[in-house]
């Protein structure tokens, strides 16, 4: 260990060493900073890209889903429209059928023999519904005579079936353009029964709908429950 003071050459040499040292330290530090900067650059860039792409993907998925739902709605609307068309067509045919039937019932009263039987039948039916001791029968003016005959037979049949007596009177208050049949009213006037041909047809139209549907249009494939 030199304990004597340094000579000039040694001083210079020491200076150079120190300068070199300072320089070296600086370079190393600078190098570290740069390397770290590059790393951070890569990380930051990747993070930003990932963030935004995830957001974009989510948007995209949402859009796709929206489009799919819109498509489903469209298809459902199409199916509905189609069904409605079919239903409307069937309804129209049904109405046509009923109006044809209504036109034809007026022919029924032409055959006197059968019409008399019919009148008897509907009067007895009416009496059995009323179950009253007296009743009034209302017929068309042109049926008055027939109706009186029918009423007489009917009260006999009524006695046969129920064992009860009944007093029947006949009046001609129905319209002539009705298809036929009778209305009845209990003696007290409290109960009325409409057993005209028009009314019977109307009731049938309603009650026979399932059967009519089946006969004209075939069975309903979508139906699951039968009585």
């Amino acid at each position, binding site marked *: 260990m030199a304990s004597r003071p340094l000579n000039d050459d040694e001083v210079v040499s020491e200076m150079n060493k120190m300068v070199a040292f300072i*320089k070296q330290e600086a370079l190393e530090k600078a190098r570290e900073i740069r390397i770290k900067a590059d790393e951070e*650059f890569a990380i930051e860039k990747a993070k930003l890209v990932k963030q935004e792409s995830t957001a974009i993907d989510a948007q995209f998925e949402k859009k796709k889903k929206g489009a799919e739902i819109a498509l489903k709605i469209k298809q459902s609307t199409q199916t509905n429209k189609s069904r409605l068309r*079919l239903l409307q067509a069937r309804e129209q045919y049904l109405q046509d059928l009923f109006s044809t039937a209504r036109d034809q019932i007026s022919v029924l009263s032409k055959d006197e023999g059968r019409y008399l039987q019919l009148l008897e039948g509907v009067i007895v039916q009416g009496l059995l519904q009323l179950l009253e001791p007296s009743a009034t029968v209302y017929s068309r003016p042109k049926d008055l005579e027939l109706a009186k005959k029918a009423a007489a037979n009917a009260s006999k049949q009524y006695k046969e079936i*129920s064992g009860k007596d009944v007093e029947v009177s006949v009046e001609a208050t129905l319209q002539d353009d009705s298809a036929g049949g009778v209305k009845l009213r209990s003696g007290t006037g409290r109960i009325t029964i409409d057993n005209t041909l028009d009314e019977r047809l109307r009731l049938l139209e309603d009650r026979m709908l399932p059967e009519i549907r089946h006969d004209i249009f075939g069975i309903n494939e979508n139906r699951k429950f039968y009585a």
Partner: protein
Amino acid sequence: MSSKQSQGIQTLLEAEKEAAKTVQQARQYRVQKLKDARADAEKEIEEYRKAKDAEYKTFESRHADDTSDTQSAVDKETDAKLAQIAESYKNNKDAVVKKLLDRVVLVKPELHRNLKKAS
């Protein structure tokens, strides 16, 4: 002697200054890099977005074709069914009208089921 000392100190100070400059440059480099990261990321994101949009467009156009196809298919089916209904009605109408009329005149008078014939 003192001038030589101050000369030495001067040299060292200059070396320090240079060193500080070097480090400072590195720091500026870092700051710039961070800005670059943002800019580069923006570019990449924009490209990604464009690619996705194009993808969506093809998806959309494909589906538009689908809907018009289904519509015409449904219409064809409906028309076929309508024709079937018309045919069926034509064939069965008369029989059903007859059925209705027959039942209008069919009368079956019956005593109410809760009653017995009074003797």
